[in-house]
């Protein structure tokens, strides 16, 4: 067969979202790829400029729909830095709990999607089933399954409901043996190793050249986790290890994500214990008037500029489930942020697609792209 271009996407079972992977193939070999993004570009950065600082949070949940709370956390840290607000300690612990549960939820979603890519049918449902238990926890304190709107500038919306921590421990106890089951279904099978070993190799130096972060970078043996390297929130208070693997291939990425979930469980046990022992306020005491939700915005522009709230630029960078996300919030003293810029880890991971796809087979594309864990929402924003 001669060379031809095929379009994998935008509607294709491999993409898990809305993007187009143009592939030039010769027989079954991939010669060149060209990802085409933007099918889910919703102008979130532009809409944010027309919204209040707190109202941007509703967009953050939808930016990355599998890791909404992590993106809320990202934005909130940047906005608080731009506005010079310090959240109370309990709120920080709650945010850490959110992010770690979200990491488990996101990785379970990744697991479900990834095993479907290599043709495993039932683990998809196991992953979704266990993710639903995590979402139940979210629902019990934020009030929604996926779009939480839980964090606020200066704290979080509400404290935990009674009985939450016991339920959380029960779910964690349920999850740990499940991880073993997942490993049995994947690592225990010879076909999985045949399918995924030495596939989609992206070496550490290539990762850094192309700005690849997160589990993909750690699978290449680079021990870099922002929670450890530059602890934000209160991550320096908790005890955990960074998951690293050798091989830089699909199996290594699987191993890293699985280990990250185990480490998240470990962090969560500590955080939940702390939350049990230390009740307290969850909202900072000094929040600008127009910050909290129960206030009317004032129609006339210019009024707030008279008040001269401190101007500033906030930069935050967190270890999102997919990698390093960054936010850059410019506060010009108005009620709306002047400019919000996000750095999506998936955006960078996808931009290196040519490096880790060329030379493999067409049938290898789904496992490799599955191991990258594409979330188009945050990539296109």
């Amino acid at each position: 067969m001669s060379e031809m271009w095929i379009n994998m996407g935008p509607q294709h079972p491999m993409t898990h979202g809305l993007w187009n992977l143009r592939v030039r193939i010769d027989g079954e070999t991939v010669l060149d790829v060209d990802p085409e993004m933007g099918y889910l570009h919703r102008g979130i950065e532009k809409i944010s400029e027309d919204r209040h600082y707190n109202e941007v949070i509703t967009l953050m949940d939808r930016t990355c729909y599998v890791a909404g709370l992590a993106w809320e956390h990202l934005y909130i840290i940047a906005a608080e830095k731009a506005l010079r607000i310090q959240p109370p300690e309990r709120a920080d612990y709650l945010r850490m709990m959110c992010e770690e549960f979200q990491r488990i939820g996101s990785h379970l979603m990744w697991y479900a999607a990834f095993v479907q890519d290599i043709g495993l049918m039932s683990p998809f449902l196991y992953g979704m089933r266990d993710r639903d238990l995590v979402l139940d926890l979210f629902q019990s304190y934020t009030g929604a399954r996926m779009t939480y709107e839980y964090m606020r500038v200066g704290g979080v919306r509400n404290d935990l409901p009674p009985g939450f921590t016991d339920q959380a421990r029960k779910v964690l106890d349920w999850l740990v043996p499940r991880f073993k089951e997942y490993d049995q279904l994947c690592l225990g099978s010879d076909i999985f190793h045949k399918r995924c070993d030495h596939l989609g190799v992206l070496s550490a130096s290539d990762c850094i050249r192309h700005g690849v972060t997160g589990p993909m970078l750690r699978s290449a043996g680079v021990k870099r986790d922002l929670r450890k390297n530059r602890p934000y929130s209160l991550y320096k208070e908790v005890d955990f290890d960074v998951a690293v693997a050798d091989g830089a291939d699909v199996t290594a990425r699987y191993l890293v994500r699985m280990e990250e979930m185990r480490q998240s469980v470990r962090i969560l046990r500590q955080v939940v214990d702390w939350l049990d022992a230390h009740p307290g306020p969850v909202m900072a005491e000094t929040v600008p008037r127009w910050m909290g939700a129960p206030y009317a915005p004032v129609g006339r522009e210019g009024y707030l500029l008279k008040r001269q709230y401190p101007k500033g630029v906030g930069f935050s960078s967190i270890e999102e489930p997919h990698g390093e996300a960054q936010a850059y919030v410019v506060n010009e003293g108005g009620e709306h942020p002047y400019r919000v810029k996000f750095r999506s880890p998936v955006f960078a991971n996808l931009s290196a697609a040519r490096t880790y796809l060329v030379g493999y087979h067409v049938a290898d594309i789904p496992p490799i792209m599955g191991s990258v864990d594409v979330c188009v929402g945050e990539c296109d924003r």
Partner: protein
Amino acid sequence: MAGRAAVPFVEIEALRVKEFIPAAKEALTALIAEQGQARLIRPVFNWAGRNSLFPLHWGLACCAIEFAAGFGARWDAERFGVVPRSSPRQCDLMIVNGTVTWKVAHKLITLYEQMPEPKWVIAMGNCATGGGPFRTAYSVVPGVDKLVPVDVYIAGCPPRPEAMLDGILRLEQLIRERKE
């Protein structure tokens, strides 16, 4: 008996072969118009059509995750015979689950046109219904009903999987009440 009066049976016999087929067609159409579709067969096909809706498997945005959760172990939409297929040729239900951008709009229309008749569309979530929180954005179609005809809207941001199932059941009810 108007149909038969127009093209009597004897006359059809008398017609030449070249004219036979259009005349027979006309007679048949008239017959169906008079008596309606076969009374026994229509309910069967209606029952079959509403109990086996194959949705198109394409994830747009947040709602796609809830869509997937609806096919997960907990809600299991397959109970109602709803099995997602990847190829539009084998689908009869397009669940638009997420924000439709102008960049993907023509592809959505193409997919809709690739689906064989009879086909239905569910707009799941607020983005598909009316653009949702992104409707002011420059790149977003304010509602998928501007592109393809929508049968059922499911509100929610995103709708729970139960709400999605409720929407599918509502569509089944609509098909049951449908008049041809």
